[in-house]
């Protein structure tokens, strides 16, 4: 399936869980395709949101993101786009603790309506969340928080290898992705490489998401760029620095110019990569694969 075809599966207003965390294993190619397809009012959830969240707001693709932390990354300061959209009420950043989001996906993956946890109590984070409930444990009498299952309509997950059936192998940090995949009603996997089922069966311990859960598989090389994909490429730091500078100057115009140049104008994902530039891609690739060097 192509990125465009996969984007057609996701209707306006759908709830979408986004895999990866901050700058890592972000399903950027699928987000790119959804923004190009002019999707509207997606309800999004991710452990930690970075530039993909900024671009979902700035393009009008989402006006509501559930996440625990939302900015490009600590070295670039507080997100000007997140600030601009949330402070003017144009979009909503619904803040849960990272563990709470993880357990909401896990409850969804377990097929139960909630899970108990011990953080957030006494804070103003929980005071803002009518969907989190305080209870006294029926067994011990202890005070606990119950967080509701999150079963998004779709999960978007990028992996290193996947076969045509959807057996997906993830190298490195899994973040919340395995629970997210099992919790979502439909799963779109983008992958650096589509490999044979025989190759998957040679290392079944590396398969982290089973084909049973997966509805679509799309091959997208450098599918997280300018973010990183473990063992494949690190973030494109120069690109991210220039993006941050452009946004700092003028969040609205900066984001729209960026979307035009990198999201709307390119005819294909390959042309998008071409605009990121071969030199930066190869440098990111050299740094990425070096994780396997001694």
């Amino acid at each position, binding site marked *: 399936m192509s990125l465009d075809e996969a984007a057609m599966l996701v209707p306006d207003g759908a709830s979408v869980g986004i895999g990866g*965390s*901050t*700058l*890592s294993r972000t399903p950027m190619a699928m987000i790119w395709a959804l923004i190009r397809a002019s999707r509207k009012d997606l309800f999004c959830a991710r*452990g*930690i949101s970075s530039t993909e969240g900024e671009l979902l707001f700035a393009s009008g693709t989402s006006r509501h993101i559930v*996440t*625990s*932390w*939302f*900015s490009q*990354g*600590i*070295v*670039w300061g*507080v997100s000007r786009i*997140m*600030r601009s959209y*949330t*402070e003017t009420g144009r979009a909503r*950043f619904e*803040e849960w*603790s*990272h*563990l*709470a989001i*993880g*357990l909401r*996906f*896990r409850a969804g993956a377990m097929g139960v309506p909630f899970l108990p*946890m*011990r*953080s*957030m*109590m*006494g*804070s*103003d*984070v929980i005071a*803002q969340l009518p969907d989190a409930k*305080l209870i006294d444990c029926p067994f011990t009498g*202890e*005070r*606990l*928080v119950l967080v509701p299952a999150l079963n998004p309509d779709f999960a978007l997950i990028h992996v290193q290898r996947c076969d045509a059936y959807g057996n997906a192998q993830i190298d*490195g*940090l*899994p*973040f*919340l992705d*395995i*629970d997210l995949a099992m919790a979502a009603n439909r799963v779109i996997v983008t992958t650096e490489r589509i490999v044979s089922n025989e190759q998957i069966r040679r290392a079944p311990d590396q398969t982290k998401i089973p084909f049973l859960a997966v509805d679509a598989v799309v091959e997208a090389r450098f599918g997280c760029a300018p973010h*990183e994909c*473990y*063992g494949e490429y*690190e*973030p494109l*730091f120069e690109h991210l620095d220039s993006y941050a500078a452009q946004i700092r100057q003028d969040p609205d115009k900066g984001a729209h110019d960026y979307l035009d140049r990198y999201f709307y104008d390119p005819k294909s994902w390959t042309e998008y990569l071409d605009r990121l530039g071969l030199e930066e891609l190869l440098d990111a690739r050299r740094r*990425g694969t070096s*994780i396997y060097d001694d």
Partner: protein
Amino acid sequence: MTTDQPGCTASELLAVMSARLLRDGQVVFAGVGIPLLAATLAQRLHAPGLTILFEGGVIGAFIEPGQLPPSTNEQRCTRRANMVLSSTDVLLLLQRGYVDIGFMGGAQIDQYGNLNSSFIGDPQHPATRLPGTGGGNDIASLTQMIVAMKHEKRRFVNRVDFVTSPGFLSGADTRREAGLTAGGMYRVVTDLGIFGFEEHSKEMQIRALHRGVSADDVQANTGFELLVAKDLEITDPPSEHELAALRHLDPDRLYTA
């Protein structure tokens, strides 16, 4: 007042002073920035058996010099680690009691050690929407905390605008009463001194001053009344050895500018 000690920046001072608080054999859950750097520094100097956990899902990290990550979710965080696991599962180690120390930075703190990284101003109509908790609330809720932050009056306030990560809430026994049965604020390290919390009231108190800083200097940079510990200490300035090790780890001054 100037917070730079002779020969080092305020951030370097924070990193060295907080690294000294970590002990060999401890398990520390470190946030990005100064905490990650200070934990790595401790590991290179006096605590080679320090186990560093990252929210991205890492147990036993060894960050490489000059390869500092932009968050704790990149592959750089996994170098020579013992294990990678999901973010949910690494955070659950806190809840199960495997972690000795949580170690974070802070944007705004109050007299009871509550931290705000969510909103400046009224949360309904904020002057500034900040990036939020991440795992900060989980770490502060579930284990003993060290916080490293710059000492400014606007950051040390009587009451935070929003409790993102709980300290001792309203002091005394209110943290426990809220259901938080483990952990609490242990130390706050700033470029002026080192702070703890009075045993009963849980109000912040000065435990140590950095050389050349007086208790009056600290009070003048703090938006609430500080207690002073009976056995107030003066810290030793960062040594050449500590600063050299630190600069080797962060040669580009990504975290220590």
